[in-house]
């Protein structure tokens, strides 16, 4: 079962920042793999539109990007900027609060 597209789309940018924080400089396919692995195969790049999010983050200065040739292939590598690091901290805090709130409302027995 895959995740609801809205859930993924709303949180994808934050998740990408988190993957970049853990992996350092990497490219789109590896980010997609990391997300698929973390979701046990339930994340699909087309679902949350991975590349649009990466381009948005690049445009907003949250990640920097460079093209490199590796093994005869041109790849676009992304890296977290210091602004991206701060955004990630803010998104984590926001998500924690929000998840707590949703959990309390949806599953009051376990709140």
């Amino acid at each position, binding site marked *: 079962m895959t995740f609801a597209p809205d859930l993924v789309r*709303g949180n994808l*940018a934050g998740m990408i920042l988190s993957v970049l924080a853990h992996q350092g400089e990497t*490219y*789109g*396919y590896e980010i*997609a793999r990391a997300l698929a692995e973390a979701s046990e195969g339930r994340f*699909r*790049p*087309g*679902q949350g*539109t991975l*590349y*649009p999010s990466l*381009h*948005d*983050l690049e*445009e*907003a*200065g*949250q990640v920097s990007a460079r*093209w490199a040739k590796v093994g005869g*292939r*041109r*790849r*676009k590598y992304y890296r977290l900027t*210091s*602004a991206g690091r*701060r*955004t990630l*901290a*803010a*998104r984590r*805090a*926001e998500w924690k609060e929000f998840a707590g709130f949703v959990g309390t409302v949806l599953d009051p027995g376990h709140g």
Partner: protein
Amino acid sequence: MTIDEYLERLTAGLDADPLRRDEIRLEVHGHLRERVEELAADGAERAAAETRAMEEFGPPEEYARALSGPHRMPTWLRMDRHVARLGWCYVGYAIIGILVLTAFAILNREIPVAGVSATDHGSGVALIGAAAIVLYLVVGMALVRRRPWARRLALAAVLLHIGMFPIGTALGLYALWVLLHPTVRRRMARAG
């Protein structure tokens, strides 16, 4: 549909300049190729692997829309871009301040302020002007770097220049719109 046909459909729907379109095509092509290779290494036939890779990516037209749409960016990210822009505006405003201060110093050998001759207070006014310029530079760079304390400092700076029509007023109104936006308030409070 082959991967080339998929990429043709994707790029045909993109609302982007040719250079950016080529970059997106190259990036998506690389992704699909790696996915096909991974699936083929797991034992899938090439044609089946290609079909699956494209299915996972989603319909090309939908993807092109997501890449080109004017409202594709989430609010928090859009506002974050405004914070950076505002930062550069402050840097620009400080540079204008430096030029004005220098021009007055050279042309008049004194620095008038608010219609009052500054002959006796020239150095004092210059000091205040220089302090304001330093403040705008600090605010600008702090906003560009999204420092959590930058928001409060920028709001204080607004009080200094919002009355200076037209540039100071325009910058002040833009700053208020950005800094008082709920998303920016929330985000900068949390980043601290």
